[in-house]
C-alpha cells in the first residue's frame, strides 16, 4: 500500500493539466456563488415578510443554519451529482486507452495501491470543492452567528457524499474503455441511488414495508440530510463507509478481471 500516494499524486497532476478539472472547478465556483447569493436573498425576503406580518414566534425559530446554510449545502450536493462523474470518468478508462494499464499491472504495485491511489486522487479533488463551499458559510460568521456544529457537520456530509460519488464513479470508469460511457454509467448509478426513496414512496417496491425501508436506507440523500441537521450519527457515517468500501471492492475486482478474460 506504500504506493497509494504516488498513484494519487500522478492522477491529481494529470487531472490538473486537463481542462476537465478547471471546467469542473469554475462551474462549481459559479454555481456555489449563485446558490449562496440566491439563498441569502431568499432568506432576507423571508425575514422581512415575517417582520411585516409580526409573526414573532416564527421569527424566533428562523435561523441561518437551517434556512440558509443547510439548503445551500443541499443544493451543492445536487451539483456534485453532476460534476463528480466528470472527474472520475477518466480514472481507469484513460489507463485503458493509453495502454498504461499494462504498465500498472506489470509493476510491483498491489491492486489496492492502484484502486486506493485513484480513489485518493478523486477524494482530494472533492476536498478542494468542499473547501470552496466552506468559504461561503465562513462569510456568514463575519456578519451573523450560524451554529458552528451544524455548519461543520453539513460540510462533513458534503465531503462524505462526494467521496461516495467518487467511489461509484471509479467503479463506473473501471468497467469501460470509454470516458463518455463511464460518465453515463456513474451518472445513472448516482441518480438511482439518490432517487431510491422516491421509488419506495411510489409504492413500486411494496410501499412502506421492509423493502421500501431498505431502499430508502440505501439512498445517499437520507444520510446526507441527517448530517445537514447536525446529527453526526455513526449509523450514517457507517452507511457512507459501507458504500465507499463496497464500490472500491467492486472496482478492484473489475480491474483485476482484465487478467481473467
Amino acid at each position, binding site marked *: 500500500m506504500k*504506493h497509494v500516494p*504516488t*498513484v494519487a499524486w*500522478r492522477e491529481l*497532476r*494529470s487531472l490538473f*493539466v*486537463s481542462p476537465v478539472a478547471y471546467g469542473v472547478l469554475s462551474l462549481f465556483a459559479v454555481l456555489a456563488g449563485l446558490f449562496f447569493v440566491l439563498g441569502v436573498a431568499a432568506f432576507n425576503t423571508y425575514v422581512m415578510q415575517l417582520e411585516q406580518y409580526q409573526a414573532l414566534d416564527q421569527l424566533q425559530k428562523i435561523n441561518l443554519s437551517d434556512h440558509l446554510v443547510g439548503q445551500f449545502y443541499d443544493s451543492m450536493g445536487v451539483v456534485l451529482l453532476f460534476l463528480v462523474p466528470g472527474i472520475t470518468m477518466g480514472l481507469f478508462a484513460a489507463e485503458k486507452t*493509453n*495502454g*498504461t*494499464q*499494462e*504498465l*500498472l*499491472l*506489470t*509493476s*510491483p*504495485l*498491489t491492486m489496492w495501491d492502484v484502486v486506493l491511489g485513484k480513489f485518493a486522487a478523486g477524494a482530494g479533488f472533492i476536498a478542494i470543492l468542499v473547501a470552496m463551499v466552506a468559504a461561503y458559510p465562513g462569510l456568514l460568521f463575519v456578519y451573523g452567528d450560524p451554529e458552528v456544529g451544524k455548519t461543520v457537520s453539513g460540510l462533513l456530509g458534503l465531503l462524505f457524499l462526494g467521496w461516495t460519488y467518487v467511489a461509484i464513479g471509479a467503479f463506473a470508469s473501471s468497467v469501460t474503455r470509454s470516458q463518455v460511457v463511464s460518465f453515463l454509467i456513474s451518472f445513472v448509478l448516482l441518480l438511482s441511488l439518490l432517487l431510491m426513496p422516491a421509488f419506495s414512496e411510489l409504492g413500486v417496491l411494496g410501499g412502506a414495508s421492509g423493502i421500501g425501508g431498505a431502499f430508502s436506507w440505501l439512498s445517499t440523500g437520507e444520510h446526507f440530510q441527517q448530517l445537514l441537521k447536525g446529527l453526526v450519527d455513526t449509523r450514517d457515517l457507517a452507511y457512507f463507509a459501507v458504500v465507499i468500501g463496497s464500490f472500491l471492492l467492486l472496482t478492484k475486482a473489475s480491474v483485476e478481471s482484465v*487478467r*481473467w478474460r
Partner: protein
Amino acid sequence: MIEATNLSKRYGDITAVDGVSFSVERGEVVGFLGPNGAGKTTTMRMLTGFLPPTDGSARICGHDIFTEPLEARRSIGYLPESPPLYPEMTVHSYVDYVARIKDVPRRERRAKVERALERCGLSDVSRRVIGTLSKGFRQRVGLAQAIVHEPPVLILDEPTIGLDPIQIGEIRSLIAGLAGGDGDARHTVILSTHILPEVEAICRRVVMINAGRKTVDAPLAELTSGGHRLEELFARVTALDAAETEGQP
C-alpha cells in the same frame, strides 16, 4: 533468468499459446520470432504477469510470476507493443513516476532517471510533454520506462516497430549495449519481432513460434551456418505448420 515452463493460453476454444517452454540465461539476447498472430505478445504478457497462463508457469530471476508477483515484477522491464504513456505528462515526470512505482529507492531515483533519459537520447526533450513528441521519441520514452529501474530482465515487444531506419539503428545499439555490460549490470533481453535482419543484428539465440507452438530454439550461429538464411527457415517453418493445420479438418 527467464524460465517458461509449458506456458499455455486458451480463450474458450481458441488456443493462443500451446505449451511453450524455454529458458534464457543472464546476458543473453533472445529473439522471439514468429508471424503476426503467432502468440508472441500473449507469451510476453504471460511472462510479465499481465495475463495469467491457462497452464504452465513462468519464473523470473527465480521468482514465480504468480506466487511471488511483486519480487518477479521488480526484476522486469517491459515495453509492451504500444508504449504505455500518459500523453499529458512531461518525459521527465513520467520516467520519474515509473521509477517510483518500480520501487527505485529515493536516493538513487534522480540519478537513475537521468541515466535512463540519457541512454535513450531523451535528455534534450525531458521537459517536453509526451503527447507532442514524434513516434520515434515516444518509442524511446517507452524504452526509458522499461530500463529506468535497471532490471535484470528486459522484455521488449517489437521495440523498433514504426521507427525510421536511423532510429531503428539507435534502438538496436542501445539494446545491444544493455546486454553487453559487466556482471550484474548485464541485462537479459528477450525481444519479439518479425523483422529478421533485426534478429541477425542483435540476437544470439532465436526462439521461433508459430500458431502458438515453439518450432525452433537454437543459437543464431547454428541456424545460419552453412550459408542458410533466416528468411528461408522462417518461411519453411511457417509453411510447414500451415500445411499441417490445413491437413487437419
